[in-house]
């Protein structure tokens, strides 16, 4: 063999050696994971993993852990059941060394409403007395953090209904409203797309208004009876609401509490001499009756 051929062969060997040195670190480098930044809950997807040979793949989610052996250089399938819960996920791929990547799983489309209406009974015509709060969840019960418009439809037993639209903030829509002037059942329905959730509250009469009584004497006894007890909107106070009658005469002061029956309250006193009788319902005072002893 000629010396020039020897030299060329040696040069080739050196170059091949250098090339190998350049390539080797690449072989030793960990397989890389290229994951999407965010996916929707319950959506399967695949990721191409570079390299050759086998590696251990780990997936850590809020409610799920996956560990399996995967072939590098192929597509890695992430099943829909692996990513049903919203939150941050960590994927780790280990061959000669480990590489990790994070991705977010976002809630899917709204599918459920968790709806609270407070309180269950409320006096009529009370400003800001009714609170409606709706939490928006997807089909996997992940809170939907992207803004969505929830419509609250208010349907009173009598009178016209109305609706109000509220945008969710961090998955929550909240509304405060006044009670309507008429007693009875009020239905509030939270609506988001095809999802509806209804709740019912009972509006009851407010405080008594224009409380009046009349006295009917019979011997030493006097019978006191109120007019039908109503609030300022004309709603009858519930049966059983306590009405207080207070009498002051020569024998002293006495009070009788009696419940409303069939819309009115009735009581009978024995009176000695001059007397003054008053009526009240809670903090509301009614009229007074003065008796001069001539019963």
């Amino acid at each position, binding site marked *: 063999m000629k010396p020039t051929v020897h030299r060329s062969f040696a040069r080739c060997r050196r170059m091949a050696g250098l090339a190998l040195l350049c390539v080797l670190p690449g072989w030793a480098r960990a397989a890389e994971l290229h994951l999407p930044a965010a996916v929707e809950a319950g959506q399967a997807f695949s990721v191409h993993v570079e390299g050759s040979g086998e590696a251990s793949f780990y997936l850590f989610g809020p409610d799920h852990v996956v560990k399996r052996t995967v072939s590098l250089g192929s597509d890695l399938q992430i099943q829909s059941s692996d990513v049903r819960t919203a939150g941050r996920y*960590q994927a780790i791929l280990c061959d000669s060394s480990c590489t990790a990547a994070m991705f977010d799983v976002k809630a899917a489309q709204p599918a459920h409403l968790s709806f609270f209406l407070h309180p269950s009974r409320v006096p009529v015509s009370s400003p800001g007395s009714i*609170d409606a709060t709706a939490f928006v969840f997807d089909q996997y019960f992940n809170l939907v953090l992207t803004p969505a418009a929830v419509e609250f439809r208010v349907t009173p037993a009598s009178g016209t209904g109305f609706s109000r639209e509220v945008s969710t903030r961090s998955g929550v829509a909240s509304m405060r409203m006044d009670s309507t002037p008429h007693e009875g059942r009020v239905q509030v329905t939270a609506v988001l797309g095809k999802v509806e959730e209804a709740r019912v509250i009972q509006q009851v009469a407010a405080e008594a208004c224009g409380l009046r009584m009349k006295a009917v004497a019979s011997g030493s006894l006097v019978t006191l009876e109120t007019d039908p007890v109503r609030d300022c909107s004309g709603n009858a106070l519930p049966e059983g609401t306590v009405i207080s009658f207070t009498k002051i005469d020569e024998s002293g002061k006495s009070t009788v509490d009696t419940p409303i029956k069939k819309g009115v309250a009735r009581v009978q006193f024995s009176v000695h001499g001059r007397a003054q009788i008053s009526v009240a319902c809670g903090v509301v005072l009614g009229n007074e009756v003065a008796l001069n002893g001539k019963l």
Partner: protein
Amino acid sequence: MKSVPDITRALEKASGQLSEAGFVKAAAFAIVACALAIAQSSPQIHSPQATLPEVHLDADGLTPRPIEQLTGTTIARHYALAWRDLAGALESSRTEGLSEEFIGFAKDRFMQRIGEQKQTGVHVRIVDHGHRLKAVFYSTDGTAMQLLDEAQLEIETFDGNKLIDTQSAPREYMVLMTPGADRWYIRDLEEVPAKSF
């Protein structure tokens, strides 16, 4: 680590003329030392007395209902207890402590996660450097509070005893808490991308 016979031989050599009683004492000392060394090298499981992480609650401007001071104190305490229990459960892959502070979806999800950790032989160690909680919603009837947590956590992931990943970036969580008979429970705890709110 040296074996017990190695250590006892070394002690014999050092003392030269150990009496039989002295040798027994020295061997016992060596065994105790080894046991302590093994105990220190094994993974630590959080005991109920483990230190609580720091939790700072900011409830300024909370709507639609302001927070009472006692409620704020209770929430911060139970949130800290919840993270202590969660870290312990994720490290030990045991679910016993989770029912104390978690309820509903949060409890179900962590129970499932820890069950699957146990099956696959992986676990997570959390070094908790504290939480800044910001209350963002408190329902008028007092039945739900939504909070945002900026947590400083170091999370080490293990397969068996092999450390496969370490993460130490700040994390944000969306939290839903509801009151129980004597405490506030975490009903939902979801990690969200940083600066989501």
